[in-house]
């Protein structure tokens, strides 16, 4: 049985199911989510002081003491006040202590723009975290993927960050009633095609699919790949598609500099077997490298969309 629910609802279902399954899971966030408080009580689901640095560190200490904390930063914006704990502690602590204890922690954060919230509340900084060793991270694009990946992330024995696109929170999609999980590190081919590969992240998966519809009418068959998890990254699925089509567009809502798009491009071009199959330079479609502005005319100009993705696909098709 499947039904249609939103990404936000899918995420909540994942938390409820996992908290029912494992009593070692508890939840900290500024403002406690009512559906969780109702089911699990105020001891396990705590609305906290606004102290993300402390919450992030407390997750580490509780995880090292046999619990499986979920820390919801809410907007990724607020993770930055906790960066000491993320960078100096969470990402390194398992390795630094010689692997003697596991630190199963889920950190959640919304990312992305498009909701007219201006620079501080419209960020997609996942590549800053990807640059650290020791953190896994997911970036789902559908309700189905959100639920399946979150459940796996909660069961993982490492710190995992779930980046969840603000634009997609209300997006509805089919989710089965039955239990399922999605492994980390497995990309999903959202649409099969033969002429050009579009590797897209989060909201841009949907823009890429819309671009693919347009391109199909022009006689261009686009394949759309969603990596779904940023660490580990499924390089092989991406490379296999690139070898098949020989032409690649990478679409990311973040800016290009040292972004996930740069990592994906490098994974494609540094692999000799894949490089030999390329018929055109890999092209990136990213946000402009600016803080995200407020006014609609400015914000819309800064972000990539289906039109920019389609234009990039046409450009790589035109290359010889």
């Amino acid at each position, binding site marked *: 049985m499947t039904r249609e629910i939103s990404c936000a609802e899918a995420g909540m279902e994942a938390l409820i199911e996992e908290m029912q399954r494992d009593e070692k899971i508890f939840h900290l966030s500024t403002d406690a989510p009512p559906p969780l408080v109702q089911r699990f009580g105020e001891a396990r689901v705590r609305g906290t002081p606004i102290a993300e*640095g402390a919450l992030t560190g407390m997750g580490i*200490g509780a995880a090292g003491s046999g619990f499986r904390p979920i820390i919801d930063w809410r907007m990724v914006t607020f993770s930055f006040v906790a960066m000491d704990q993320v960078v100096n502690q969470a990402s390194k602590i398992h390795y630094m202590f010689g692997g003697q204890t596991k630190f199963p922690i889920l950190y959640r954060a919304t990312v992305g723009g498009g909701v007219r919230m201006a620079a501080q509340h419209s960020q997609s900084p996942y590549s800053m975290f990807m640059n650290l060793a020791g953190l896994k991270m997911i970036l789902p694009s559908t309700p189905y993927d959100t639920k399946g990946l979150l459940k796996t992330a909660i069961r993982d024995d490492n710190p995992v960050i779930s980046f969840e696109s603000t634009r997609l929170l209300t997006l509805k999609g089919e989710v089965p009633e039955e239990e399922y999980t999605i492994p980390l590190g497995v990309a999903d081919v959202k649409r099969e095609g033969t002429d050009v590969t579009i590797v897209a992240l989060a909201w841009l998966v949907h823009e890429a699919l819309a671009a693919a519809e347009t391109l199909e009418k022009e006689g261009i068959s686009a394949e759309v790949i969603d990596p779904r998890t940023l660490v580990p990254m499924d390089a092989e699925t991406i490379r296999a598609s690139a070898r098949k089509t020989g032409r690649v567009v990478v679409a990311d809502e973040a800016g290009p500099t040292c972004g996930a798009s740069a990592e994906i491009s490098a994974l494609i071009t540094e692999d000799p077997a894949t490089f030999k199959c390329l018929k055109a330079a890999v092209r990136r479609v990213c946000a402009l490298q600016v803080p995200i502005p407020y006014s609609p005319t400015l914000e819309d100009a800064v972000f990539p969309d289906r039109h920019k993705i389609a234009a990039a696909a046409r450009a790589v098709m035109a290359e010889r």
Partner: protein
Amino acid sequence: MDISPERQREMLRLMQTIRRFEERASTDYVAGDIYGTVHCYIGEEAVAVGVCAALNRDDQIISTHRGHGHCIAKGADLNRMMAELYGRETGYCKGKGGSMHIADFNIGMLGANGIVAGGISIITGAGLAAQLEGKGRVAVSFFGDGASCAGPFHESLNIAAAWKLPMIYVCENNLWAVNTSAERALAVQDVAARAGGYGIPGVIVDGNDIFAVHEAATKAVARARAGEGPTLIECKTYRHRRHTERPTQPDIRPQEEIDAWMKKDPIDRLVAHLKGQQGQLSEEEWKAMDDEILDKVEAAVAFAKASPFPAPERATDDVFAA
């Protein structure tokens, strides 16, 4: 407080073990056998030992960059500690951590930490775990006067007080954050006064008096186990040595100040106390205890030297838990 002579001698043995371990670590660091840096706890031993003597094995602590004393006081193995300093495979962290990252989760030692104030919220999370578990465990955060100026201290105390977490915050106020005096850096000279902002007890003790430290810790532990919430204990103490053992490490502390504190040495004080009590510690017994400690430190060095370095390919192990 009534502490049996046996327990007092055990406290002395642990304090002297910290001192001899670090004297050797310093020597071997300067000789080039130990890498990076070494921060010595010498002079502050009464704090770690006095507090940890009030704890059970399953109670948890977290330490600082000056962490050897807390490890030893909580019961860490000298061989594995020294092997870690020597960068060997048999070390606590398999050679991945060194002096500033020794941890032993099996004895509730959640690690030394290279970031000032970095451990305070982590151990507060262990306190939350203890509260959720409901078995009466407590958690202790060791930190210095410098860390009491940093955000994690204030965020963590607020949360622990608001939630009545079973926490003991132990400030080792050694008057200097590297070469910046507490007199200049702290808005109030008593860190304990900061407890008032969080509605919890703030206790000042002579950190070089092990009995005073132990008594304050015992009270705080009882309060935490009873579910009454955290206590902030400020131990006024002093490091005998420079910030690190690096020979070029500057030390601007006034000589008169150093001399005055050397006279308040916590080990000398405990030895004098025990010798003053009929039949509790003779000079011969003290010498024998010290010799035994020196032998253990020597054995730890031998263990470290006999241990292999980790193979280069181990560098990619343990980035993630399997």
